[in-house]
């Protein structure tokens, strides 16, 4: 019987080492590096976030599950009574140890009860942790989706901002163009007004010159008529003579 127990203990140690090597290979914080054979995990660090953390948590749950196989099997087992001696001395030693075992049974029984309670607690905790892990993964997946959506929206927002900035610049350019056009229009109107005024004055001058020419023409006509009348009068006088 003692050989069988030793073999079990060695197998448990091997499984624990293999689990630690997997953890180290995954680049995570060392887990159960200081775990002793009695399952003390005080120095084990709890993973925080990320997919590697999710794997680590799953491994941790698997490790706890492996611990539970140990506790399930050994929670009520006490150390075997053995002797390294031989002969009579060995018989005496074994008898003494059995007596002492019987005498300290009340104390060992409490330990067995404690082991049973721990085992039950861990066994009940495991599905809760698994459920929480599952829920956590679901939430992480949702968070990832939200993150992706957020990044997409941020991209869209940046694009919109760029468009808005370009539009603002276009608006500014349009405003500037409008100002230039307004200024040109004002200059054009002013120039047009000056030209109109110039034309008005030119036409007025032409009108005055035409009036003067007409007056001079009228005067010349009257003078010519007078001269013709005088000529006619003289011709008449000559004819009479």
């Amino acid at each position: 019987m003692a050989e069988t127990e030793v073999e079990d203990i060695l197998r448990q140690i091997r499984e624990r080492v293999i689990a630690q090597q997997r953890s180290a290979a995954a680049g995570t914080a060392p887990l159960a590096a200081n775990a002793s054979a009695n399952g003390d995990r005080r120095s084990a660090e709890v993973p925080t976030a990320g997919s590697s953390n999710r794997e680590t948590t799953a491994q941790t749950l698997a490790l706890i599950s492996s611990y539970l196989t140990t506790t399930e099997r050994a929670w009520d087992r006490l150390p075997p009574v053995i002797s390294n001696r031989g002969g009579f001395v060995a018989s005496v030693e074994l008898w003494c140890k059995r007596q002492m075992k019987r005498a300290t049974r009340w104390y060992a029984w409490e330990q067995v009860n404690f082991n049973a309670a721990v085992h039950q607690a861990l066994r009940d905790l495991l599905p809760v942790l698994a459920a929480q892990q599952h829920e956590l993964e679901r939430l992480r997946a949702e968070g990832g989706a939200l993150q992706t959506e957020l990044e997409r929206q941020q991209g869209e927002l940046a694009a919109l901002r760029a468009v808005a900035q370009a539009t603002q610049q276009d608006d500014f350019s349009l405003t500037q163009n409008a100002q230039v056009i307004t200024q040109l229009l004002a200059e054009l109107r002013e120039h047009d007004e000056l030209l109109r005024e110039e034309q008005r004055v030119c036409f007025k001058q032409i009108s005055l010159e035409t009036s003067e020419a007409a007056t001079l023409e009228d005067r010349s006509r009257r003078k010519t008529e007078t001269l013709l009348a005088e000529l006619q009068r003289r011709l008449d006088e000559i004819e009479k003579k």
Partner: protein
Amino acid sequence: MPKESLYERAGIADVAEFYRTKFASDEVLDNRYFKALDRFDIRFARTMWVYDNVRAGSSVLELGCGAGMLAMLKRKGVALIGVDLSSACAIAARRNGYDATFAAELSRLPLPAASFDYVVSLDVMGHVEAEAKDAVLAEVKRVLRPGGVTLHGIECTDRTARKGYDEMSAAELRRFVEIDGHVGLEEEQEQAARFRKFFSQVAWQPRYALCLSSEEFLKQADRYGLPFEDDFLDYLRGLSFKERRAFDMAMGYVFGKVSDLNLRLPESGLYVLLKASDAPLGPFYNEHRDRRNLFSATAEAAVSAASTTTAANQLCLDRNLEVEFDDGWFEPNMLPPIARWMGQQAAVKFRAATVSEIRLDLTTHLPDLHALPLGVEIFLNGERLCAFSLRRYGWLELRVPVPADLGGRARGAFELELRTDRTWQPRPVAGETRDDRELSIAVCNITVRVKSET
């Protein structure tokens, strides 16, 4: 192979365009704007020689009319026709009052034979190459009526002092011709001899060398290299617009007196005045001198003014020969329209029975007008009619009512005076034109509403 002309050798391909850039201008030479005092201006000295030698009411053809330097001959009631190589010059002369103008070569005049009493040219024969001159003179003889007279002012050369065309290098020739386009300069006797081939009577006098305008002195020195004293040239360069005008008036006065005294000047190798005809020539100067129409207070002009007044109940002062524009006004410019710039103060004297309203158009090119408006005041016979600030460019039409009592006190004589509070120089450092006039406003279309004289 035809011989290359001097124009071609000088790199002038388009001769008409060359003369357009040299002689076509917006200059107002219309006789209606001519001030009697300008008869003393050396600029009009040769025009006055022609004016005093043509008969009133005759027909005059001007060869190479340019912008119309002979326009004042219209005051003598002549029929004035102009011919120029450049169509732009022909148009300018027409605008200045020529009865008709043509763009044509002088050796192929588009005019009937024996159609003019006078054929005149000023500063033209020096622009006709020696080989072409005979053809031009043949045309002059053709269009002249029998007994007609041809009058010329001709640029000459002095071969002892100046290289002939054949002696000039290509660069020298180009530089020389580019100044004025002189490709036909000959000595004084050569010119006279050429005319004698066509006319039996030829008389000529070396003129326009002793008396020159200030601008011409500087041009002869700077461009043609004539020797004048350096300090004299420096003095001329330093003259202001008014001083230059005074100098030119003095020169013109002396020029006129030399003519009046019939003094013969020594040969200068620069310029001659020449008369030629197949009929016996009269006096070289003042053959038909009658300057009455240059002055405002002639009976004919008075009739004209009165007629104008009667016709429209308004009197336009701009071109009225009875009206006197004082020296505060500069010579008219084509802005357009034709307007007179004034300095800080200028006056117009006119006669009318009564004046009820004065109208005029005015403008300014004064810089910074928006920042500093130009103050303008208008007076009639010393009484201020209005005062205002000119704040904008462009033409302003002004109508100023005249108090009724003012006309009564004036006794028919009025003096319209305009004053401004500042002036500016349009081109204070202009190189060639040296226009340093002090200008304020330009005025035109000055009309007064009058009541008919009874």
